[in-house]
């Protein structure tokens, strides 16, 4: 049979490759070979000598990122660094006002993505562009989770013009689809802030007054090439009460800073991948409404308003199939608009027939935690004034440490040396993990049930 004749050759090739592997391997032990084997050796040497001036391969150094290394304490433990992170998170939460504040619940956001050639820079891994897409996807998912009544549209800045990538929609899947096709978004040319903002502004112009209008710009370029005076566009945005936030990937630009300052948005320059994500995710919780801004405009259009909303009837999977008005598809499940009886596939949405805003009660409920947050727990510093302290966490029943723990450095501020955090209302003690979990996820105190 023909294949058999070939086999000896195949066989030889096979054993050759083995020898290669083997040789390479043997050589590396004598530190004569190249590649990984040597790298290990050198790594050892460097550690011994401390910082050595002589670095044979400079490209290898680019892998070590100074911000990735967490500082160890004298004993070589990372405990201090980790606690520092937790403490920082706590302090940030303490800064937030605990009382119920007005927040914009019905949000409309235009995501403005920089698709200029500057986004192909590799200072963030793998590239600025890929990282932006990845974080944008996570951002959209999380944003809809926290703002179920909001809508997002996507605009790209590429080759000097603004490109509408996705219409304003309340369906996360559609937004994700708009930014999922990487090859359609390939960065090229110069960005134009003015053109893109104008396009974003025009797509928010029809919105009702009570909803917020926001533009989030992820900007990687250091230039913008605009057809006219961008300050006029800025003035228009201020007039339309559009809030612009910018996350810059390169460096601070005067115009970006001004866009944010004038419209009340946030500006930040990402230091690294993690910080980029932090900056982006800081924009997820609904912004507090600024009491001053509307008053300054004379209060003619106060943002508060009464909205008419429909609560639909949900059709079960077993109901007879009928056509939906949104995709004209025959399916059994869906929601009936209470005003016109039209069937839509998904809520929340605006009814395609009568324009009524259709929401289901869980969607409203999902926003309540922004309005009625759990009170910040207080760190317990000593147990002298508590008659009989509980022995375990009120939430997860984890036993508390008895002896106070030494805090590493200055990070102890706002942290309890006993690992206890007390609810100001029900005076129950919680462990640090539950403290974070209750405030970030559950939004309801296990002790007082509020």
């Amino acid at each position, binding site marked *: 049979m023909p294949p058999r004749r070939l086999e000896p050759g195949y066989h030889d090739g096979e054993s050759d490759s083995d020898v290669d592997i083997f040789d390479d*391997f043997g050589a590396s032990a004598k530190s004569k070979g190249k590649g*990984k084997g040597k790298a290990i050796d050198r790594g050892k040497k460097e550690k011994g000598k401390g910082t050595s001036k002589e670095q044979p391969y400079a490209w290898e150094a680019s892998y070590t990122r100074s911000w990735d290394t967490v500082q160890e304490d004298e004993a070589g433990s990372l405990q201090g660094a980790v606690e520092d992170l937790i403490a920082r998170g706590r302090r940030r939460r303490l800064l937030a006002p605990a009382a119920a504040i007005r927040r914009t619940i019905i949000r409309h956001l235009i995501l403005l993505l920089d698709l200029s050639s500057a986004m192909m820079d590799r200072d963030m891994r793998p590239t600025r562009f890929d990282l932006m897409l990845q974080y944008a996807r996570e951002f959209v998912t999380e944003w809809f989770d926290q703002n179920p009544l909001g809508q997002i549209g996507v605009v790209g800045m590429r080759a000097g013009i603004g490109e509408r990538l996705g219409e304003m929609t309340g369906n996360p899947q559609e937004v994700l689809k708009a930014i999922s096709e990487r090859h359609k978004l390939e960065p090229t040319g110069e960005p134009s802030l003015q053109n893109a903002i104008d396009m974003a502004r025009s797509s928010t112009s029809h919105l009702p007054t009570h909803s917020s209008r926001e533009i989030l710009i992820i900007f990687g370029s250091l230039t913008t090439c605009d057809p006219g005076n961008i300050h006029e566009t800025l003035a228009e945005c201020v007039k339309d009460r559009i809030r612009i936030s910018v996350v810059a990937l390169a460096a601070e630009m005067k115009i970006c800073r001004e866009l944010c300052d004038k419209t009340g948005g946030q500006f930040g320059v990402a230091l690294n991948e993690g910080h980029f994500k932090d900056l982006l995710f800081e924009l997820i919780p609904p912004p507090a409404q600024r009491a001053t801004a509307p008053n300054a405009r004379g209060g003619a259009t106060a943002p508060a308003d009464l909205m008419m909303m429909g609560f639909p009837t949900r059709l079960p999977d077993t109901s007879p199939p009928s056509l939906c008005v949104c995709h004209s598809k025959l399916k059994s499940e869906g929601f009936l608009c209470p005003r016109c009886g039209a069937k839509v596939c998904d809520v929340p949405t605006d009814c395609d027939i009568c324009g009524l805003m259709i929401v289901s009660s869980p969607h409203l409920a999902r926003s309540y935690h922004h309005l009625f947050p759990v009170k910040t727990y207080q760190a317990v510093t000593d147990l002298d004034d508590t008659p009989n302290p509980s022995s375990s966490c009120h939430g997860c029943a984890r036993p508390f440490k008895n002896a106070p723990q030494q805090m590493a450095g200055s990070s102890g501020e706002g942290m309890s040396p006993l690992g206890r955090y007390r609810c100001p209302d029900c005076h129950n003690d919680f462990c640090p993990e539950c403290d974070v979990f209750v405030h970030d996820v559950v939004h309801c105190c296990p002790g007082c049930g509020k």
Partner: protein
Amino acid sequence: MPSVEHNPDSVTQSEWSPHILLTFLQSQSQNALTRLYQRPSSCLSIFRLLRPLERQLIMNILWLESATPLSTMSAWVTQEGKKPYSDSLSTLARLHIIPNSTTKLALNATFRASLRQAITGGGTTGSFGVPAEPDPQHSPPDIATLDAYALERWETILHYMVSSGTGQHPTKPSQEVLFLLQRSGLMTRVHGGVLQITSSGFQFLLHDPHAQLWELLLQFLHMAEERQMDLVEVLSFLLMLSTMELGREYSTENLSPTQSAMLADLRNYGLVWQHSTSARQFCPSRLATTLTSSSPPLPTSRSTGGGSHDQGFIVLETNYRLYAYTDNPLQIAVLNLFVNLKSRFPNLVVGAITRESVKKALANGITADQIISYLTTHAHPQMRKNKPLLPVTVQDQIRLWELEKNRLKSQEGYLYTAFASQADYEYVLNYAKQLDVVLWDNPTKRCFFGSLDGHANIRGFIERRSAGIA
């Protein structure tokens, strides 16, 4: 380059294959099983060894007094559950837990009564072990001691196996253990009476400790049968051990003579601890108490590695190089089966997977899949971030090396030649092809080769045909 077939089904199949003990139980008589089911602890342990769906089926009808119509239960089964459901029912029928019936589902009355008793508690069977009175002279061992003891016993056995025939002489396990190893075919006595590990022994070494333990125990059961021990008593003692609590002493008083005799064997395997051979108390070790669970049967603090076993210790690179962070002689010895070890450091062994080393392992009867699964289960946590876990090149290459072994396949059969005419030849060949017995054919030479089982038919066919012509 030949493509490597990777059959995903085989993975799910093995996941779904019943526990090794259950296969053994299925071969037992209904009478023996019913006797076994009389003890609540046995029922509970067997129940735990069943697959999840089987457990749920038992639970669904456990509390019903009357039999359930089969149609009622199958109404709950979803579309994709149809096949697992019928599989489960047949397994349960073979275990005589749910007797075969075309209309009704009902539990074996003995099994039902015992499992109910196990779950609700009470009764007077004492099947969960009678705790011993605290002995003022000998305080019970703490859990660490027990773990160390079990580990030492178990590794002695494995280490003895792996280093047999290498010229080293580690500590020998007891005679009974050696006998068992020999009986089970894991080791064999070569010329001069030296025990040498067999190919199934090599395969055994690559299994996880849980499977190894059951494999040995099953051999023990087979041996018990031959030694005229009462199998039900042996089994129920093992199953009782699995429901006992670690670090507690139990009294030997309620044990039957067979079971007392077993204690000595179990001590040798490290399943049971006793402070002296004649002690009236015994302590089950972790090996025993985890028999029916999937948690690791050996303590996590394996050797001085500090939990390295539990975490995995092997780093495999795409260049076939392998780093094993271990100083455990057993693990090193096992790795040595298929890795060309190069250098050894206090806590690290470095080697490479080469064609020769894998060929050696294959010659010993170890399969490529076993090597890969060993590497997978013992991969270092750092490796677990990779997807796929092992470098694909290495996996494929190991499989290819195994395929090299399988170039020639022999099959018995008959060569049919000397046909009178081309038409004759084609007529017979057609017939044989319809039977699907043709292995090879050559029309120019008018001959074909048929497999053994088709011979009678083909021969009859040719005879009938020649008779017809004549």
